[in-house]
């Protein structure tokens, strides 16, 4: 490989390089990190944020943002626990659809529309649960369990959603339109793309993915809590941005988001193994997000 192509590869996969360096540093400081069971744990811990972040990737590529994914996850899990898992998924997609309608037909800025949904969905979760956690049924509990020893289902689900996201982004018309809408909405419109209808589907997908993430989370815990997934939207956005997507739209990839979610999970796991106090962990994670965004903005220059 020539110098130019190495440089090109590194610049296109900056997040991946960062992940490997991070893992290496942690492994040197605490060899237990490389323990197979621990690595699987990292994957499982990454799964919920990753699935949420895949949905977020669609929205961000299309030039929007979705602050409601954490609340939607909690609402879907709660509805799933009170009724059945699939109904939870449906409710999540519906919430997303409402987001999409507010953004495209109501012409609200995505930030405002989804901020409103963040509150509404969380509120509904509290209303339905009456403030109490509820046990999940066998189907949802299965989502969070091990398929076989050393084969955790959340990890497999994360990979499945990763595959779906990649396919949607690169091989479907909807995906191609996401890039066009996020890159230049006016040009997309003048090329005959029905921007409003597509946004509807994009936000609905994000809602659906958030709901799936919520079910996986509830499945792992065996119960849906009214305060589950609080603040997860910020981790999801961080994963997307660490993965190299641009918040101004038109840029972003499934691989990037996967790596972004893994960076966050590896970091949390590593900080735990190194016995960094939890309060300090927050500081370190924040610094890493800033660093990732900074490196990304440097390489774009």
């Amino acid at each position: 490989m020539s110098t130019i192509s190495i440089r090109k590869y590194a610049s296109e996969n900056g997040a991946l390089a960062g992940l490997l360096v991070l893992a290496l540093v942690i492994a040197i400081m605490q060899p237990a990190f490389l323990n197979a069971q621990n690595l699987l744990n990292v994957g499982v811990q990454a799964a919920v944020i990753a699935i949420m972040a895949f949905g977020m990737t669609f929205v961000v590529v299309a030039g929007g943002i979705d602050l409601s994914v954490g609340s939607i996850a909690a609402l879907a899990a709660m509805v799933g626990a009170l009724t059945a898992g699939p109904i939870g998924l449906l409710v999540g997609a519906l919430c997303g659809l409402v987001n999409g309608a507010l953004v495209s037909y109501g012409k609200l800025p995505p930030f405002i529309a989804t901020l409103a949904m963040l509150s509404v969905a969380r509120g509904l979760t509290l209303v339905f649960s009456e403030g109490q956690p509820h046990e999940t049924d066998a189907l949802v509990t299965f989502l969070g369990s091990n398929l076989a020893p050393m084969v955790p289902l959340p990890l497999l689900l994360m990979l499945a959603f990763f595959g779906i996201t990649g396919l949607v982004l690169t091989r479907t018309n909807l995906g191609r339109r996401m890039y066009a809408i996020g890159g230049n909405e006016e040009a997309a419109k003048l090329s005959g793309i029905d921007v409003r209808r597509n946004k509807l589907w994009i936000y609905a997908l994000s809602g659906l993915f958030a709901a799936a993430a919520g079910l996986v989370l509830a499945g792992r815990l065996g119960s849906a809590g009214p305060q589950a997934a609080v603040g997860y939207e910020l981790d999801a956005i961080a994963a997307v941005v660490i993965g190299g997507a641009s918040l101004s739209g038109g840029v972003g990839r499934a691989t990037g988001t996967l790596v972004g979610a893994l960076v966050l999970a590896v970091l949390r796991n590593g900080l735990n193994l190194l016995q960094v106090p939890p309060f300090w962990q927050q500081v370190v994670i924040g610094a890493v997000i800033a660093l990732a965004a900074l490196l990304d903005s440097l390489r774009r220059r």
Partner: protein
Amino acid sequence: MNALITARGITKHFGATKALDGVDLDIFAGEVHVLLGENGAGKSTLVKVLAGIHGHDAGTIEGHSSLAVIHQELALVPELSVAENLFLNRLPRKYGFVDRAEMRRRAPELLNRVGLNVDPDAKVKDLGIAQQQMIEIARALDKNAGVLILDEPTAVLTETETDRLLQIMAQLRDNGVGLVFITHHLDEIQRVADRITVLRDGRSVGVLGPKATTQHMIELMVGRPIDEQYPRAQQRPGQPLLSISGLTKRGVFEDITIEVHAGEVVGIAGLVGAGRTEVVRAAFGVDGYDHGKVEVDGKPLPSHNVQAAIKAGLGLVPEDRKGQGLVLTATVGRNLELVTLGNRDQQRLHDIAGKLRIKGRVEQPVKELSGGNQQKVVIGKWLLADPKVLILDEPTRGVDVGAKVEIYELINRMTAQGRAVLLVSSDLPEVIGMSDRVVVMAHGRIAGELPKGAIQDQVMALAVQEISA
């Protein structure tokens, strides 16, 4: 005489492509030095290297004078006043606060140097683009810039505004400023140039004197002789493909009726603000209208519905290439497939890119292409959809001579295949040279229609007419 700036052997690479290859350039006090070349020839890169925005890989630059660049995208703050913009970043101060009195006292003096008579307290956003340009020039002069680089300043100006700018430039030259002027309008060059450096493929291919003929300039720039500037090959018109009848949008345009037949190119001429762009946007369904009718090949189109218009066989190349035509974050290929997303025939993308002679690979980010090549991408995405009628709104704005002729050839090819073209253009020789009929608009109405071979004066007479009602 000492040069204000002396550049020798400037070489600049972007990745594997050589944007500049050993360019020499001298800028003297009291001259208008034109940089001429096709889009992608390296003019903008050279300017950026001179201004220190880009570094260079080889060569030397010696400067005995500070330098200011007036870019096409103006660097003004629209919400601030004229005076505040003039002194941006170095506002006069008294006791640590902005000294407004001093600012108002000094502003007229600066504005006078560029012959601008506006209220220093007016907000910049309320001024016309030509006046804004003058403000930026005034600001540069106040910083004692000995060299002023103007990057395609006239592209956004009307004819009178252009005249005014050229006068000011001549005045500045007489006062000893060294001016570097980039433009695609050869007539402007003949009016003000003292010397012309022609660039081609990153190399300086000649330095011409003020008496250079247009023919000579074009041939040097393109590197081959060009037979005809407007090679329109007329067809016998067939059935009507686009009929716009009685189209009205209150306060914008009124009672517009235009018919375009198969094999025909119909031009729409008029002054900026006559309502031409508004009419074609409404016809294409981007904006709504109050009443009237649009038919494509006999079928009426619903109002305000771009998808239906495209389905019926209409296409629009919008006037603002970067703002409305391209997805700049995407590759050439992704842009080409924008209209025909359902169709995944990669071979056709490569074919069309080759046919359009787009310089650049299909996988290349479209923002790396020059203006002319970007415009070919926008046209290409429509050719893939094979529309019955293609509306071109200012298709050659900011496009170099070589690419212009290629776009004209595309128009010819379309009409030879029985398609029709509606051509909106502010470039009079172009709209007259390429159209079979010219519709002239003024004040939102049709002022008249002229046959092939109309002369510029006739078009202008209609375009500037007052409303009689």
